């Protein structure tokens, strides 16, 4: 379009009429069509909020602030969501504690250590991790991993019995399907996204910063600390937050391995529950207020993940903009 207007002064007055601003109907129709498709994203997000809150409204109105109560007992008509919020926080934290160092380590390995020829196959392997569907992680988790790690849990559990803090974290009761197992499985699942985002951020560090550090005689570690890290800090934080959002919302694997027990406990090896898992397991057979409550837990989960994602994208974008400016 701009090219057309730029051509105007060059053309003589007579032929300039032909190069008018008027566009054929089909052309304008196409623009409207693409705009509609773009707006679809916003429409869907708004519709999600409206329709799910509407379904959950009876839970919000009848329970009021008791939606954050501790007790979840459909038989007794108690629908407090605190247990599940707690479980979501615990499993997400366990997943992050394990996945973040590993992901950043792999990202650094890919960008700073191995030659390009080798980094390709490593990226393929990490991508492969993302291709394994959630439900397959869950199947493996519950049938293979949980029975195997149960022995480790119980020996750690009996080992720490009586030691003040450790006992309340790792002591019995222990079970193969537990907060910790869910955290481990979630860690595997968020590793690909945290790795690839961190790698992208780290790859934008200017080569001149690296070379400068090396020229001053820095070792690779010192170069990473002095040149790479200050530059990519913000982006890596954003990547970690996106991983957190994923870990909070990941449903099926957690539903299979978390143990499905609505309890708040500091014991990490004990069975628990989290928000997506309780929706997946109980929604099908629920009705009335319980269904509204599960829908409401979904609304809370949606709100939490949206907040985290908005912050994460903001952080990533700001660090990207700063980099472009520099």
């Amino acid at each position: 379009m701009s090219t057309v207007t730029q051509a105007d002064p060059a053309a003589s007055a007579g032929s300039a009429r032909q190069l008018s601003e008027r566009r054929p109907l089909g052309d304008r129709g196409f623009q409207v069509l693409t705009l509609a498709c773009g707006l679809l994203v916003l429409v869907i997000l708004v519709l999600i909020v409206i329709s799910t809150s509407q379904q959950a409204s009876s839970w919000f109105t009848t329970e009021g602030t008791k939606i954050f109560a501790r007790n979840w007992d459909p038989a007794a008509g108690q629908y407090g969501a605190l247990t599940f919020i707690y479980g979501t926080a615990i499993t997400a934290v366990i997943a992050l504690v394990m996945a973040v160092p590993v992901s950043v380590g792999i990202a650094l390995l890919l960008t700073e250590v191995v030659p390009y020829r080798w980094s390709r196959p490593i990226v393929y392997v990490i991508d492969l991790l993302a291709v394994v569907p959630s439900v397959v992680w869950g199947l493996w988790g519950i049938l293979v991993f949980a029975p195997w790690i149960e022995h480790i849990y119980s020996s750690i559990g009996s080992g720490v019995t009586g030691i003040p803090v450790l006992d309340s974290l790792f002591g019995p009761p222990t079970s193969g399907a537990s907060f910790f197992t869910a955290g481990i499985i979630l860690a595997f699942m968020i590793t690909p996204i945290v790795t690839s985002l961190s790698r992208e951020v780290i790859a934008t560090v200017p080569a001149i910063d690296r070379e400068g550090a090396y020229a001053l005689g820095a070792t690779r570690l010192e170069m990473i600390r002095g040149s790479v890290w200050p530059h990519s800090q913000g982006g890596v934080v954003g990547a970690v937050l996106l991983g957190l959002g994923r870990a909070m919302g990941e449903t099926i694997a957690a539903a299979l391995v978390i143990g499905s027990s609505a309890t708040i406990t500091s014991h990490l090896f004990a069975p628990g529950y989290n928000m997506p898992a309780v929706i997946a397991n109980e929604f099908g057979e629920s009705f009335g207020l319980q269904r509204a409550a599960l829908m409401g837990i979904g609304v809370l989960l949606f709100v939490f993940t949206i907040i985290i994602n908005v912050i994460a994208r903001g952080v990533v974008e700001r660090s990207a903009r700063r980099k472009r400016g520099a």
Partner: protein
Amino acid sequence: MAVVAEQQQPDLREAKGWRRTSNRIATALMVIAFVLVIVPLGFVLFTVIAKGASIISWSFLTSPIPPQVLPANVGGIGPAVLGTIEITALATVLAVPLGILGAIYLNEYGGKNWLAALIGFFSDVMTGVPSIIMGLFIFSIWVLHFGYSGLAGAFALGCLMLPVVIRSTDEMLKLVPNSLREGSYAVGATKARVTMTVVLPAAIGGIVSGALLAVARAAGETAPLLFTIATVTAANPNVFSGANTSLPSQIFTNASSSFAGAQARGWGAALTLIVIAFILMITARFVTARFARFSR
């Protein structure tokens, strides 16, 4: 140092002592991080292949789903294979064109205006919406009024795919050089024509491969289907009405079963699902390598 510098060459060898040790430790930790990932991944793939390969056969892939109590050699997962293909294909038909058109708006029309920035930002945010929320969403706006169907499942999967397709297509359109667009405008083409006949074909390799990756991810999703297709065991060739089933839903059901036969069928279904996702991923790589004129 400065005093002796005149006579002595600077020492360019590797740093000594703790500096060298800490550097080596850091490198070793990075390698260990990678090993920590590939060992469990290898273990998962090995288990799925070992347990799945023993049960998979043509009749397993096509036979009806038997009751869970029956042993592994009876029946198969035919209805689930059919359901997965139907629902994923329908979701692709719904989401991919809309996503590509949305990306065209972002890149060709929106440019840097606030609305395009807003849509782009929320597409990114939407990729982070948990898949189970999409299931609840379609349940409340569709299933409550029209009942369970493959179409409802396709809507839910489509909602998951849409932002992914928008983002990957947008990235690809950005790579198309502006000179191509300007050349077409110069010969008098309208914007719609330039986009459809010049820009899209130039980026088609990357767009297709991005869409295939989105399909591969959607095919493995269970959570959006739980409350939209209702997971039955009978085959349902009509994707537009009636409860349906899919591979991930069947695996989910069988994983929580205590019967050995059902678990074995779960492993077989898991292998089938991974192979499908894998084929899509490899096709995507092939398409990128073969057809991408402007891609990374």
